[in-house]
């Protein structure tokens, strides 16, 4: 019996342009300038970061930029021990839900400069930026979030964002 055919290669290469849309455009410009810009929903007042243009809860167009300091609270976290293709960080490392001060939605980001056993829900952190000369239109300007010397936030205060 001949060998079974186990593989057929049919490579595909496609190039696309990207259209940010109105609010993502402002957000990306902000990142290039070293600023974190949230956007507020005019109906429910939630502040989104990253702002994708619309309030995911009520469908209203976001309006009104809200500059955010980069200080934040960890609302949940997990430790990554599994290696995978394309991994950027050395394992083990911590991925956390980050609630920026002044924002109402968390986003997932790695924590830096700490031992995994020291991470706590409610701990205070701040954004660690790449050097200014490397700023581009990307959230990758922020390497991760590192702990700051501020007292933990009570669990009750972040419960809604977990």
């Amino acid at each position, binding site marked *: 019996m001949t060998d079974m055919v186990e593989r057929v290669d049919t490579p595909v290469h*496609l*190039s*696309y*342009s990207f*259209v940010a*849309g109105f609010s993502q455009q402002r957000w990306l410009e902000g990142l290039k300038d070293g600023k974190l810009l949230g956007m507020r929903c005019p109906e429910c007042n939630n502040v989104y970061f990253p702002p*994708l243009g619309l309030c995911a*809860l*009520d*469908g209203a167009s976001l309006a009104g930029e809200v500059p955010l300091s980069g200080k934040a609270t960890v609302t949940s976290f997990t430790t990554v021990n599994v290696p995978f293709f394309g991994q950027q960080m050395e394992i083990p490392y911590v991925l956390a839900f980050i609630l920026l001060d002044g924002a109402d939605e968390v986003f997932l980001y790695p924590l830096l400069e700490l031992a995994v056993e020291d991470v706590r829900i409610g701990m205070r952190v701040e954004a660690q930026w790449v050097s200014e000369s490397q700023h581009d239109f990307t959230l990758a300007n922020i390497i991760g979030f590192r702990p700051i010397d501020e007292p933990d936030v009570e669990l009750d205060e972040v419960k809604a964002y977990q």
Partner: protein
Amino acid sequence: MKRPVAIVGSAQLHNVRSSPLSDAEMLNRVVREAAATVDLNPQTDIGFVCFGSADYLTGVPFSFVRATDCYPAWPPMSESHLEMDGAFALYEAVMRLQHGDIDTALVYSFGKSSLGDLTTVLTLQMDPYFVAPLRPDSISIAALQAALFLAETDHTEEEMANVASANRRRAMSNPFAQLRWDRSVDELLVEPYLVQPLRRHDCPPISDGAAAVVLAVGDRARDLCERPAWIRGIDHRIESQHFGLRDLAHSPSTAAAARNAGADKAPIDVAEIHAPFSHQELIVLDALRLNAGTDINPSGGALAANPIMSAGLLRIIEAAESIISRDADRALAHATSGPCLQQNLVAVLEGD
């Protein structure tokens, strides 16, 4: 149909070559506008939402998930997505309304055809092992069909030019159309071939657009709209993916869908045909055998604006609006999907 379903409201964006809006921003506009035409609140008054789009067009995996931001998802919504034209999403919504537990549905779709090299992107809908690796671009595939069509039937390049000319002329009175002009058949026929036997005017424009439709059942439809466009019949049929097994010069799937939708039960006043290439309109019309006097593509059809994944839903919207506005009493909408009219949907709409 056990429960009569009608189109009661709709909205569409002005079709453009390249939209500065994000996917969700485009959809949000049509969703809000369609709901507003019938005074419904998307958050509380819609029983089911069905959405058609294709991630290959935007080049972003799960772009349809991101695009659902266009719709308020609180309280939690009942939603379904098809990697297909919105016309097929409308079919699913009509079936969903037959369950009897809800009275309204909203269907939307967007096509950002401008982001990639469209003619190459469309090759990826074909057999991934033996056909797609050859990268036959969408215009060449359509040209192969057109050559067969001209050889196997009595139709001519003049008729194709006439289709191109008529659609772009009709588009001059469609505020949402992208490609509009008034040029005679004689002028068009002296143009060089793009891919023989297709000339540039035989091919559709590349369009960014979005559309949304509100559906309602029975008395609810009558409450929401003075003259609902009742969907009296709707069906879709698909042919083989193998070009060699198909009769490319004819469209038996269109004929079957039209028969099952009851198209021939009474004369049709307005027919909206989703034919991206001029010869395809002739193929579809041959299959439909419409009565003389039917007004074909008052909107200008897909030759005037072709937002992939929305162009079929737009045909249903245009047919429905002709009923709602009392321009027509009985209208037919046709939508297609896949290369060379592989899959075809026919809906028959009537006023009270």
